[in-house]
């Protein structure tokens, strides 16, 4: 080994010297860190014993704790502690805490729930959470919807009806409004005439001559629009055909169109292509009957429930 100059201060070296002058520092980990590390190993050993963990023979270490919950027959059952059992019990405990609320809600008709300020406080907070998790992706956070895609739930225009029963049915079963495309059944001129008539029904600007022609078509057997939208154009809630006489639109973005040709184009595109996109999923099975009831009242309160 060659003679090397000692590094006067600073960290120790390992003592090795290569190539005459290459030395390696020796920086041991701090003691507190090392002991901390040993403690984590000890912790793991204790954890293995206390919680379900290590496979042994045919089974595994089940831990020292047990947990008791109620099974579906209503009997108490005890099992070694695990997260599923803990969840089951927590849900049961929460159900007990919320039971007074849900019991009142499930026994009361919605008409009375809305009159009870205390219950409505519960509905508003539980309803908002449910709505944000499940409905807001489509109907938007406040329920304002998206024209051309998802109906606005805050107005008093209801495609399928705004009574408690109708709203509940919508949420439970889902909805799938269907209007056939008319691109092949009708000529372009006929469709334009119909578009002007549709605009005239809600007092939008339109061409009166074309609208008169469209009116005849609307009530004729050729187009048979009246069959679904009704002779008065107010729509039928059982099949979800839109009310064409109000100024609230879902599929044709008439309010967003700047001038008459653009408004006609919007309506024309709906008549040409029909509507087969309005798919509201069914929530029965995904949400409990109580949750659906809370949502029904919540949605009813968002806008002009009827």
């Amino acid at each position, binding site marked *: 080994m060659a003679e090397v100059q000692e590094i006067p201060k600073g960290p120790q070296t*390992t003592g090795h010297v290569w190539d005459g002058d290459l030395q390696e520092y*020796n920086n*041991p980990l701090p003691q507190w860190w090392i*002991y901390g590390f*040993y403690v984590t190993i000890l912790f793991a050993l204790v954890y293995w014993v206390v919680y*379900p963990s290590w*496979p042994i023979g*045919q*089974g*595994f270490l089940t831990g020292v704790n047990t947990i008791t*919950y109620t*099974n*579906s027959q209503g009997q108490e*059952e005890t*099992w070694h502690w*695990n*997260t*599923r*059992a*803990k*969840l*089951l019990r*927590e*849900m049961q405990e*929460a159900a007990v805490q919320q039971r007074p609320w849900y019991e009142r809600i499930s026994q009361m008709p919605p008409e009375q729930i809305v009159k009870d300020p205390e219950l409505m406080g519960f509905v508003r907070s539980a309803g908002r959470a449910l709505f944000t*998790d*499940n409905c*807001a*992706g*489509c109907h*938007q956070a406040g329920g304002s919807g*998206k024209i051309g*895609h998802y109906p606005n739930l805050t107005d008093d225009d209801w495609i399928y009806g705004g009574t408690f029963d109708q709203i509940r049915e919508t949420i439970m079963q889902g909805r799938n409004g269907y209007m056939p495309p008319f691109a092949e059944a009708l000529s372009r001129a006929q469709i334009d005439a119909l578009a002007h008539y549709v605009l005239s029904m809600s007092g939008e600007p339109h061409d009166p001559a074309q609208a008169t022609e469209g009116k005849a078509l609307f009530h004729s057997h050729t187009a048979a629009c009246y069959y679904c939208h009704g002779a008065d154009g107010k729509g039928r809630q059982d099949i979800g055909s839109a009310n064409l006489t109000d100024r609230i639109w879902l599929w044709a973005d008439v309010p967003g169109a700047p001038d008459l040709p653009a408004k006609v184009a919007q309506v024309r595109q709906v008549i040409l292509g029909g509507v087969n*996109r309005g*798919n*509201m*999923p*069914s929530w029965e*099975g*995904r949400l409990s009957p109580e949750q659906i009831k809370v949502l029904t009242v919540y949605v009813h309160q968002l806008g002009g429930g009827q």
Partner: protein
Amino acid sequence: MMFKFKHEALETNTGLLLVATMMAISIGGLVEIAPLFLIEDTTEKVEGVRPYTPLEQMGRDIYIREGCYTCHSQMVRPFRDEQLRYGHYSLAVESKYDHPFQWGSKRTGPDLARLGGKYSNEWHVQHLIAPRSVVPESVMPNYPWLMENRLDYADIGQRMRALRAVGVPYSINEEEYARNVKDFGPEMAAQLHIPNARESLLAQVRAGNYDGDPSFVSEMDALVAYLQVLGTMVDFSKIKPETLVKFR
């Protein structure tokens, strides 16, 4: 500690270093692999779980290709808040045919394990092309090419063969086909039959029209078909919750 152990002893002794390294690695291996031998006891005995159809499997491969798992997990943990938000907690058996599974631990976006049926196909298409058009505050990237790319399903047979090799019950002969008829019913068995893979893929696209554009088979068709089946195979209304407790 009682004894004085210096790392120098390890670092200057190749043989000892080798033995110690192997010990450390085999402990890690044991912890991760040993529980697999008990898989019979941890996989719940529950009906309904089946392999993915060819179209769903293609969609799954696109899901992995696009790295959706970097932001989305597929594992509802047995916690109350998760169960309230996403639905029933995930079962081990539900990822029985997943290679690789998509449990994940990174949630920039929500968990997708119970996504199937929550939204319409139309919503998925729109949300994947432009997430912010439906969820204004979303940070999810746009995936417009899914709608434009033709789905390349020429190798679907090979993909299914590879999965079969690791234990997914896709069938290649009459005997396996008959077994699938017994296990999954005749309609599903036909879809899981490798020689029919392309025809059943096309048939599912025609029947489902997932992307709303019937003119050609897009990658969107496959991805949406996959998203719509997530978490829908097990009917939890038929299962008593306490039976699942016994598998942990």
